[in-house]
């Protein structure tokens, strides 16, 4: 029951709540929905120009235009990025979390250090790695020279994209690790002792005690890295600006709208819708699969 008075004053909470709701609808959900409408027009970002509905032309163009293979490559790069981040980031994070979870000298310091890149942010982290991968005598280049080879790193068509994935994982591994660690610390110690009595050692104890017990943490981490992996593009903007075959769907939305002189809002919106289909599909599948698995365990 609402204790703070009757009559008109009953509506004060709702009235106040409407301020954040209005902001949310106006700047987040509303624009998200209107993206569908924009994707069916030839709108541009140039002020004062008229626009009209052109049906599904933006989508047709995406798949059939002369540069369609670029777009298909952007889709496959988006998926490659997301899968690599999901698998490697979570595997490394889980390994480190398990190691740090047991008594280890200086464990608080380790945890804090792994988390630091999240605080430093994408611009600082990106520039630090650009410095390390500087082709003009940077440390990574010196190392390659020892093996008699060399690379242009972020300026190389062969490995620029893989290096971006590496920096992305470097940045957010600590975040995933923190979530795993919380899951690990919530496991009661006597479970392991009971398991030990029943002969569960090493791998068996991990497989049958640790793994099922941290199922919720795995769900959270996988979902976050799928969504993040498919939606992130600030790291690409900072490291290569989308050049050298490193643009993904998410980056192309930004690039089509803001990084070209044509600023094609209709086409950018269509790419945003295609990206949305991927995010939605993968998030739903992952959520259903992992929630079901949690229940079965």
């Amino acid at each position, binding site marked *: 029951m609402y*204790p*703070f*008075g009757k009559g008109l*004053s009953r509506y*004060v909470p*709702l009235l106040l*709540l409407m*301020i*954040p*709701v209005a*902001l949310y609808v*106006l*700047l*987040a*959900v509303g*624009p*998200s929905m209107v*993206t*569908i409408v*924009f994707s069916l027009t030839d709108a541009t*970002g140039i002020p004062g120009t008229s626009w009209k509905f052109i049906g599904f032309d933006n989508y047709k163009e995406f798949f059939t235009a002369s540069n369609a293979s670029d777009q298909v490559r952007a889709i496959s790069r988006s998926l490659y990025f997301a899968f690599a981040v999901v698998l490697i980031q979570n595997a490394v994070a889980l*390994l*480190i979390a398990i*190691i*740090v979870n047991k008594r*280890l000298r200086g464990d608080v310091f*380790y*945890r*804090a*250090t*792994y*988390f*630091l890149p999240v605080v*430093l*942010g994408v*611009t*600082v982290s990106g520039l*630090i*790695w650009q*410095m390390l991968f*500087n082709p*003009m*005598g940077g*440390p990574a280049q010196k190392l390659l020279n020892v093996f008699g080879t060399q690379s242009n790193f972020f300026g190389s068509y062969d490995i620029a994209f893989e290096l971006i994935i590496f920096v992305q994982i*470097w940045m957010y591994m600590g975040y995933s690790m*923190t*979530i795993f660690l*919380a899951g690990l610390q919530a496991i009661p110690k006597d479970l392991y002792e009971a398991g030990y009595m029943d002969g569960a050692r090493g791998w068996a104890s991990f497989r049958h005690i640790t793994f099922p017990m941290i199922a919720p943490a795995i769900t*959270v981490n996988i979902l976050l890295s799928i*969504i993040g992996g498919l939606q992130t*593009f600030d790291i690409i*903007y*900072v490291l290569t600006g989308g050049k050298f075959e490193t643009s993904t769907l*998410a980056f192309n939305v*930004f690039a089509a*709208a*803001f990084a070209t002189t044509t600023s094609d*809002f209709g086409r950018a919106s269509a790419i*945003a819708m295609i990206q*949305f289909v991927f995010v939605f599909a993968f998030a739903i599948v992952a959520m259903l699969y992992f929630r079901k698995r949690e229940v079965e365990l």
Partner: protein
Amino acid sequence: MRESRTILGMRYGIVLLFMALYLLPLLYLFNVSMKTQFEYLANPLAIAESLRFSNFVEAWKLGNFAQYLWNSVLYTVTSTALSMLLSLIAAFPIARGYVKFSSFFYTFFLISMFLPNPLIPQFALMTELGLYNTQIGYILLRTTGTGIAFLLIVGYIKSISRDLDEAAAMDGCGYIRYLFTILLPLTKSVLATGVILTAIATWNDIIMPVIYLSDQSLAPVTKGLFAFRGQYLNNWPLLACGIIIVATPLIVLYAFLQKYIVDGALAGAVKS
């Protein structure tokens, strides 16, 4: 359960290997920042010949960092304060069920994460409202009462007894006064976490300033640093100083608030 020396050694080995991957880049950054351009070109890896803090003075002046830092402080402080205010206003009635459909609102606030990227219609709207390339416009975009702070506060308020609301109301305390004079002080710890998370996200934002703040005099420190790199492309000692100027406040803050930041990030992730 005892473990063998080999396993313990392996554990330290892996942890320290990864520590190197996180700390060596920072040490290298500092080393480069102490060099002259000539020293750097001669041998990028060698230890700097002397501590040369004058590099920082030069980078500070050339990079216009005073202006950028001020902008970042302005954006971060105002949008974080407004976000906390709105989050509290939204979280209290929803946590208590003082409005109809409160669970609907809660879910409604979460869905934007899965919806299409709002970037383009949002930009059209901001231009229409005359808020493109203005400080107010950018602050408005970074202000939200429905983000991570909202989720954290809802969770926290649910752990505060309802009896308190009723007792205060009995004594004649109104809704707004209760919210700001009694509830607000009680939620201090979770608000602190919300402040830190919101502030870090705003301080480190690069894409929105690139889109919305085309005027370089309005740029926050991220966009400023990025422009600085574009300008002094191969002068890495100078760039390293710029990076350190931007990173130092964050590292100092992190050193003091490390526990809040990590715990808060965790709570935020698990809630969403």
